């Protein structure tokens, strides 16, 4: 590792609000929205009206705001999931599948087990988290013991989760429509007082759980011995091993914790919003957006929260954008993809920023100072 690498790691470490580490994510978001605007212009739409509608769709009224929070909730979980693995040097693309098996396990437990209200929900949430953790064990074990890259295994595990959950719902939990039976109210995460605050939006107790998970993420990674070891392995597995840490165990436990968070998110979504699980040919997308959230948030708790809010708002506001400005919601998928792309290829962003500064600085500031 050379000098510049170490420096960028340090700055990333020092938090989101330091100028250096916030620059690339911020510029990436602006670039993503800008390219989105160009696409709209090319398609004959009015970007100002579209983004205005997007804003309206998020902040326009209490109901929309509550629904935006509902959309943000699962992204906090999957963002934390991906970030937790990132911190240990692992790339978990499997949040999508872990989210799915988490939803299924939660619904299954509610249907199969009887328990008093409250306890029922806790049991279901726990089942969801454990199912996600189980889904994380496979890539974790294969990485630790066989050196198999976790990216490939998590991709495969996603598809296995998609088809397996569909199969299990069809075979054992099917209602009349293409979905599972409804859960019992005793396990619901919906709360009347919370919905009433937001004009009957489907916001649910999952958001409180998500905020709790954010705190737990911080405490575990920065205040416990386990978290210290995980981060040490992430920064330099060889040094960690030399220092006497069990790298294999760290990898497996990190993937399990990562899966647990995603599974918990899936459980909260199923219990809080729908009360059932749908049979679907495509992924819900929260796991993939979690990658964007973690990348944009620099794997810090505050960054993840902000990233989840941004992408949750984009996702939810896209509906209003389609309704009021007639712009297809897929445009927002393009914007999110571009943001990930620009953050990944931060060199592109840095080059663009450099060019911008140089042309702007021609009047007074010399090139040397600007770059």
């Amino acid at each position, binding site marked *: 590792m050379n000098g510049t690498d170490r420096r960028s790691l340090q700055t990333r470490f020092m938090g989101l609000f330091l100028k250096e580490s916030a620059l690339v994510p911020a510029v990436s978001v602006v670039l993503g929205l800008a390219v989105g605007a160009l696409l709209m212009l090319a398609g004959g739409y009015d970007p100002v009206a579209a983004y205005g509608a997007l804003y309206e769709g998020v902040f326009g009224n209490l109901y929309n705001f509550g629904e935006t929070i509902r959309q943000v909730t699962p992204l906090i979980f999957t963002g934390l999931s991906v970030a937790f693995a990132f911190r240990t040097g692992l790339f978990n693309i499997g949040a999508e599948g872990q989210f799915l098996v988490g939803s299924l396990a939660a619904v299954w437990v509610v249907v199969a087990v009887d328990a008093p209200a409250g306890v029922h929900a806790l049991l279901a949430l726990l089942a969801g988290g454990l199912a996600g953790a189980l889904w994380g064990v496979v890539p974790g074990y294969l990485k630790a013991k066989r050196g198999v890259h976790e990216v490939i295994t998590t991709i495969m595990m996603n598809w296995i989760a998609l088809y397996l959950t569909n199969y299990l719902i069809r075979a054992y939990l099917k209602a009349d429509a293409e979905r599972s039976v409804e859960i019992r109210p005793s396990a619901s995460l919906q709360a009347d007082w919370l919905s009433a605050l937001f004009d009957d939006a489907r916001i649910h107790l999952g958001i409180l759980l998500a905020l709790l998970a954010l705190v737990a993420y911080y405490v575990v990674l920065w205040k416990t011995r386990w978290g210290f070891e995980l981060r040490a392995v992430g920064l330099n597995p060889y040094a960690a091993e030399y220092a006497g840490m069990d790298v294999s165990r760290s990898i497996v436990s990190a993937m399990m914790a990562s899966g647990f968070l995603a599974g918990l998110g899936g459980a909260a979504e199923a219990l809080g919003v729908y009360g059932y699980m749908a049979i679907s040919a495509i992924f819900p997308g929260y796991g993939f957006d979690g990658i964007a959230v973690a990348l944009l948030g620099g794997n810090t708790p505050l960054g993840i929260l902000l990233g989840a809010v941004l992408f949750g708002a984009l996702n939810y506001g896209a509906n209003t954008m389609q309704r009021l400005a007639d712009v297809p919601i*897929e445009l927002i998928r*393009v914007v999110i993809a571009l943001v990930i792309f620009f953050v*990944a290829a931060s060199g592109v962003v840095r080059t663009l920023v450099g060019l911008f500064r140089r042309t702007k600085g021609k009047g007074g500031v010399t090139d040397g100072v600007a770059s």
Partner: protein
Amino acid sequence: MAWLLSLGDIIHNTLVFSTALILAAVGGVFSERSGVVNIALEGLMIVGAFAGAVTAIFLGEGAGWGDAAPYVALAVAALAGMLFALLHAVATVTFRADQVVSGVALNFLAFGFTIFMVKLLFDGAAQTTTIQHPLSEWRIPVLSEIPVIGRALFVAYPTTYLAFLAVAAAYFVLWKTPFGLRLRAVGEHPRAADTLGIHVQRIRYYAVLISGALAGLGGASVALTTTSNFSHSTIAGQGFIALAAMIFGKWHPVGAMLAALFFGLTQAARTIIQVLGLAKVVPVDLINLLPYVVTILVLAGVVGRAEAPAALGKPYVKGGR
């Protein structure tokens, strides 16, 4: 002899389903042999399917190109795949972006962008209109008259023959030409290759672009033969199965082809099971997950150890350490 005749159908259907997988998997071999991870195969196939379908529709109907349209569409799809792959090359080779993250982003981008464009071009519809002039099957004279085998092997879409041609060409290029030797050297030990005067970055650009062209062709072969239109479910994970086939096939064109044929067989089996009314006994969902389970087993070393190119996933810095 009914079972023998249906055997011909099984082989025929297997070839139909394998075609796209073979093309994309061989594309993946080029990219990854040069050291660039390409999990963007899915996105490249989506872009190819989109470009192929739209070209065939507009040339076939509006411009009146008739049965020539799908062939032009194939060329356009290859070109579109290359253009899209160029993004991956620029990000990963020039700007040394994380190859996996770039691939993930491009898969997203392909999905969102193509559906956005479809809605734009087809008055808000989520899928294109039906391709009026899709590829038609080639019936090889005389040979196609052979019982069973004729139907199985000599009545096929031109893209199927193209796929096998691509396997042979990939083997020849990668193992029998100086370019192939350089490409593999760059993927195994870029530093050594650089020392010998090989332009590492340029080779990687070529490799990624070739993978884009082949995966684009693979995507278009789906739209122009089996689905006859383009929608969000045209590719639906076939790029990831192609990725699995490439790993199963140990990053070798022939191995990738064999794995793709195996995965194609499972898809053919799905239709056969439905025809025979066995869907209750063998659920389709479980057949769907077979390729992915097999890949995990391969990676776990149960079915044989997979050996990736040594420098796979590592950006190369000239003059670095």
